[in-house]
C-alpha cells in the first residue's frame, strides 16, 4: 500500500519534465551568464577546472565505455586508477622520465584489469563483486606500497604545451595551453569514437556486447574481443589515474582518486556509451566540480564536500532516464558472461 504511493507524487512531475531538455539548457545558459557577470574570470576558471578534473575522468570513462560496449561491467576503475597513479608517481620520482611514467601507469592499469577480465570472462564469476574486489585490492595495495611516498614532492610534473595562435583566442584560449595528456585524451576520444561507430572492429565490439551468440556465429572471437576491451579500459584508467599526481597534485596521498573512478562509471551511462559524448560529460562534471569550490565562503565545507557525490547520483539518474527514453539502454549482454557451451 505505502509502496504504491511511491508511484504517484514526485515521479509523475519528474517524468513530465523528461522531454524538456531545451528548457533545462536555457536555464543553465542563463545561470552561467549571471554567474559570469557576478565573478569575472569565471568562464576561464570553469574551463580550467573542466580540463583539470575532466581529463582523468575522460580517460577512465572512455576505457569503461569500451569494456561495457563489449559486455563487461568493470567496477574496478577506482582501483586501476589508484594503481596507475602510484606507478606514474613512483616512475617519475625514480627515472625522471614522464613518458616512462605514463607508459608504466598504462601497463599497471592494464595488468590489474586482466584480473577482472580473467574472473569475469574466463571464470564467468560475478562481475560486480569482482570489480568491487579490484577496487578494494587496489586501495589496499597502493595504500601499503605508496606509504613511503606520502609527503614526498614531485620534482617535475607534466608541463603545459602552448599551441601558438590558438591559445590567443578569448575564453577558450586556455584549452590550447595544456599538457600532452590533455591533447592525447581529446585525440583518443575522437579516435575511439571513430573506431567504435565507423569501423568493422567497432561493429564487432558492439555486436559482442549486444548479442554475443550471434557475433560468435559470425566468427567474432568473443573472449578475445572482451579481453582486449577490458585491457584497454585498464590502460586508460591507469593513465587517467597517473594524471592526478603528474598533472594536478604533484604529490602522492593515500586514496588519491577520492571516488573519481566511481564518477567515471556514472559518466559512462551519462555519456550513453559514446566516447564523443564522454568529452562533454567529463568536462561538464569537471567544471561543476571546480566551480563548487568557489562557493566555499558561503557554504559549510562539509556540505560543499557532498556536492560531487550528489552530482554523481544526479548524473547517473539523468543518464539512465535519458537512455530509457531513447530506448537505447545499456548493451544488452552487459554483465552477462558468455558461455560457448560444450561442442
Amino acid at each position, binding site marked *: 500500500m505505502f*509502496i504504491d504511493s511511491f508511484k504517484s507524487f514526485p515521479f509523475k512531475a519528474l517524468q513530465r519534465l523528461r522531454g524538456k531538455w531545451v528548457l533545462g539548457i536555457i536555464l543553465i545558459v542563463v545561470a552561467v551568464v549571471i554567474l559570469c557577470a557576478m565573478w569575472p574570470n569565471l568562464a576561464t576558471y570553469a574551463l580550467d577546472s573542466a580540463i583539470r578534473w575532466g581529463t582523468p575522468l575522460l580517460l577512465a570513462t572512455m576505457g569503461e565505455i569500451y569494456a561495457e560496449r563489449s559486455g563487461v561491467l568493470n567496477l574496478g576503475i577506482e582501483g586501476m586508477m589508484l594503481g596507475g597513479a602510484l606507478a606514474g608517481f613512483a616512475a617519475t620520482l625514480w627515472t625522471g622520465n614522464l613518458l616512462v611514467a605514463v607508459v608504466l601507469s598504462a601497463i599497471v592499469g592494464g595488468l590489474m584489469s586482466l584480473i577482472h577480465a580473467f574472473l569475469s570472462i574466463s*571464470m564467468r564469476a560475478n562481475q560486480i563483486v*569482482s570489480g568491487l574486489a579490484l577496487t578494494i*585490492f587496489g586501495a589496499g595495495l597502493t*595504500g601499503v606500497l605508496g*606509504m613511503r611516498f606520502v609527503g614526498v614532492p614531485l620534482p617535475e610534473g607534466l608541463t603545459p604545451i602552448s599551441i601558438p595562435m590558438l591559445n590567443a583566442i578569448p575564453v577558450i584560449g586556455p584549452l590550447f595551453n595544456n599538457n600532452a595528456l590533455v591533447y592525447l585524451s581529446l585525440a583518443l576520444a575522437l579516435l575511439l569514437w571513430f573506431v567504435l561507430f565507423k569501423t568493422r572492429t567497432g561493429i564487432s565490439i558492439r555486436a559482442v556486447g549486444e548479442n554475443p551468440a550471434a557475433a560468435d556465429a559470425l566468427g567474432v572471437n568473443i573472449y578475445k574481443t572482451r579481453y582486449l576491451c577490458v585491457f584497454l579500459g585498464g590502460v586508460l584508467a591507469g593513465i587517467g589515474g597517473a594524471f592526478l599526481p603528474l598533472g594536478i597534485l604533484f604529490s602522492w596521498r593515500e586514496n588519491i582518486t577520492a571516488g573519481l573512478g566511481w564518477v567515471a562509471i556514472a559518466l559512462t551511462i551519462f555519456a550513453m556509451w559514446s566516447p564523443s559524448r564522454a568529452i562533454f560529460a567529463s568536462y561538464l562534471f569537471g567544471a561543476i566540480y571546480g566551480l563548487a569550490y568557489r562557493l566555499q565562503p558561503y557554504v*559549510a565545507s*562539509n556540505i560543499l564536500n557532498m556536492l560531487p557525490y*550528489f552530482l554523481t547520483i544526479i548524473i547517473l539518474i539523468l543518464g539512465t532516464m535519458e537512455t530509457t527514453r531513447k530506448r537505447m539502454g545499456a548493451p544488452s549482454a552487459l554483465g552477462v558472461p558468455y558461455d560457448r557451451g560444450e561442442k
Partner: protein
Amino acid sequence: MRIRLKIERNPTPSKLMTTSVLVLSLGATLLITAIILLTQGVDPLYAYAGIFIGAFGSWHGLSETLTKAIPLLLCGLGLTVAFRANFWNIGAEGQLLLGAFAATGVALFLPVQGLYLIPLMIMAGFFAGAAWGVITAIFRGKFGANEVVTTLMMNYIAIELGKFLVTGPWRGPTQHGFPYTDVFPASAQLPIIDGTRIHYPTLILGLVVAVLLYIMMKKTRLGYEIRVIGDNPHAAKYAGMGYTRTVLFIMIISGGLAGVAGVGEVAGVNHLLRPPVQISQGYGFAAIIVAWIAMRNPLAAIASSIFMGGLLVGGDIFQTSLGLPFQTVNIFNGLILFFVIMGLVLRHYKISLVRRSG
C-alpha cells in the same frame, strides 16, 4: 590408451565441496598476502601469529573481537539477504552512520528518559538506516539507476553529514571545542558485560536476527522470491514477483539492520557521537566481505563476522607494531573476494582423470 581431464558440471554442489572451496580461498589469500608482506620487509608468519594472538589469544583480545563483530554481524546479515537477490547494497557504512545520528538525536535532544529511551533509539536507528537505503532502492526501482554507484555515493554523503553535525550544530558545549557531542545520559547507554566493551543486547539481537533471516530465506515465500529474483530475474518477472517491492523490502531490512549497528556503536561503545571515521572502522565496507565469506548464508555470517572482527582487531597491530597502514587489511579483503567468487563457480565443477582407449 590415453588419459585426459574430464570436467563435469554439478549444479548442486555438496556442503563439503563448498566448505573446502572456502578453506582453499582463505589459504590462497593468506599466501598472496604473505608474498606482498615479504616485499615490505615484514615476516608474514610473525604478522599472522601476531594478528591471531592479538585477536583470539587473550580474554581482552577476544572481547574486543566480539565487540567489533557486533556491527559486522548486523550489517553483514542484511547484506547476505541483499546479495542473495543480486541487489548490490554497498551502502551499509552510510546506513550505519545514519542509525548512529538518529540514535544520538533521540538520546540528546528528545525529552524522553528512562526505560523507553533505548528501544526508541534502536527504532529511530532502524528507520534512519532503512530510509537512507530506501532512497537508493527507489532510484533503482523508478529510474533503474545502478545501486552500486548510488549506495556508495550515499556513504560519502553520510560521512560528510556526520562531520558537519559534530563540528557544527551538534558540537557539545561541554567538549571544549572538540568535534564531539555531549555524553549520552546513563539511560541512553546500552548495558555491557563487565570488564569488556561488549554491549550484549545488540549481540543477542544480532544472533536472533541471524536465525530469523535464515528461516525466512529457507522457509518463507518472501525468501523464495528473493532467491528467484537473484538467480533468474526474468523468471521472477513471469511469475509475477514484483522487483521494486522486493528490493524495497530488502533495503528496509539491510539498511535498518545497519542502522541498528550504528545505534550499538554510539549507545554501546562511544556513548557520544564522534566524527564518522571514529564511529565506524569501515564496518559497513567490511560487512561486504562478511556476507561473502558466509557465502550469503545468514547463519554462517555469525562465524564470518567474528573472523572479520578478529582481523580488524589484528589490523590495529599492523598499524602500531609493524608500521604498516590500516589499508593492509584491504589487500586481504580484495583478494578473499576474488577467491570466494571464483570458488563459487569452481565448486560446480568436478575435475577427474579418465582413461580412454583409442
